[in-house]
């Protein structure tokens, strides 16, 4: 080993060490805040779908992760968050995937009260045409509001369709494909909830693999 190489190696190592220290220090400084932010963000993003349901504790704690096949819409992981009040189940949140949109899967969040009425619907992720299919987002139009408080039976299962398909629900102006996919996913979620109500609330939370 020549002195030149040794010198280069030492310089590099020294600078790497300084940089690592810098990053480590920053991490120490921010880690707690970041974790809190993440938690808050998740809670905040789930909350709107729960409407004004009162519950105790953290909703993210009692999480069910279902691997396909699970009977819920979509053929990827479905997540169910459960809300309890005094040990009594009050509502469940379903993060499921709607198929049949224009541009790939649409990840939606459906909140259902214990009695089967919808507390809220939110779109988590989608790639629908901007200005057209993205009206399903709550921030763009109040299209999702029409589902609030409705349940399987109000309307009956055949009514859970677009008006254009003989159902009870409006389409989005200029777009039918995206709303149709979303309604279908909501309908299937409602049916799943209806048939599996007990199991959903009784199952132990899935262990965090983090």
């Amino acid at each position, binding site marked *: 080993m020549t002195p030149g190489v040794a*010198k*280069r190696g030492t*310089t*590099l190592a020294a*600078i*790497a060490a300084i*940089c*690592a220290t*810098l*990053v480590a220090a*920053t*991490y120490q*400084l*921010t880690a707690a*805040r*970041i974790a809190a*932010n*993440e938690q*808050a*963000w998740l809670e905040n993003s789930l909350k709107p779908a729960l409407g004004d349901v009162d519950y105790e504790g953290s909703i993210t704690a009692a999480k069910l992760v279902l691997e396909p096949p699970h009977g819920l819409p979509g053929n990827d992981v479905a997540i169910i968050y459960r809300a309890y009040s005094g040990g009594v189940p009050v509502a469940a949140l379903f993060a499921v995937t709607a198929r049949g949109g224009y541009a790939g899967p649409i990840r939606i969040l459906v909140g259902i009260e214990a009695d089967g009425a919808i507390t809220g619907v939110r779109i988590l992720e989608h790639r629908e045409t*901007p*200005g057209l299919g993205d009206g399903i987002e709550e921030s763009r139009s109040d299209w999702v509001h029409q589902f609030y408080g409705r349940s399987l039976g109000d309307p009956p299962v055949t009514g859970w369709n677009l008006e254009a398909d003989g159902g009870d629900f409006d389409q989005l102006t200029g777009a039918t494909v995206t709303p149709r996919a979303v309604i279908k996913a909501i309908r299937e979620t409602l049916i799943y909830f209806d048939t599996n109500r007990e199991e959903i609330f009784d199952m132990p939370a899935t262990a965090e693999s983090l």
Partner: protein
Amino acid sequence: MTSGHFIDRLQTGLWRENPGLVQLLGLCPLLAVTSTFINGFGLGVATLGVLTCSSVLVSATRRWILAEIRVPIYVLIIASLVTCTELIFKAWFPALDRSLGIFIPLIVTNCAIVARAELFASRNGVAASFFDGLGMGTGFALLLMAIGLFRELIGKGSLFADFHLLFGGEALAGLVIVDGGWLLAVLPPGAFFSLALAVALKNYLDGKRGAARRT
């Protein structure tokens, strides 16, 4: 170096050799995040910080940096600074961090930063490098903000929307001028058109100034 030199450095970065307008560096973040003013502002400030710090650090350590290993060292410095920036954003501006997504970590790949380290900071004093980084970073940030402002105005019909991403608090709609706009502007093609218009405008102004000087 006199203060005149520093002003000159600032002018170079801000206008004459603006990284975005003239050198056309860092186009990926420039085109991807500038759909609103606040996004442009966030990434611009982050880039400015990283660029200034990296220039100063590279300049300060330039005596010990051997030519053969300079690139790994630049990468080390810049990557560390970017990681720190990302952590800071995540801790204090989480919403903006989500809105900017991958582009904060991607500041690492912004060639404007490596270019300044290689072309300027490694050959000049700390003070000069500081002003160079400040000038270049500010030039880049201002361009990001200008394009963000333009695209937001044309594409969404609003100005300075979503300020809560940066400052927290209640969601602000900003100044909504008209409801809805020319959506094309906030989509990727709009970014290209906006940058092209900005470059054209700069060339036009330079040409006009050049003509005025000649006569």
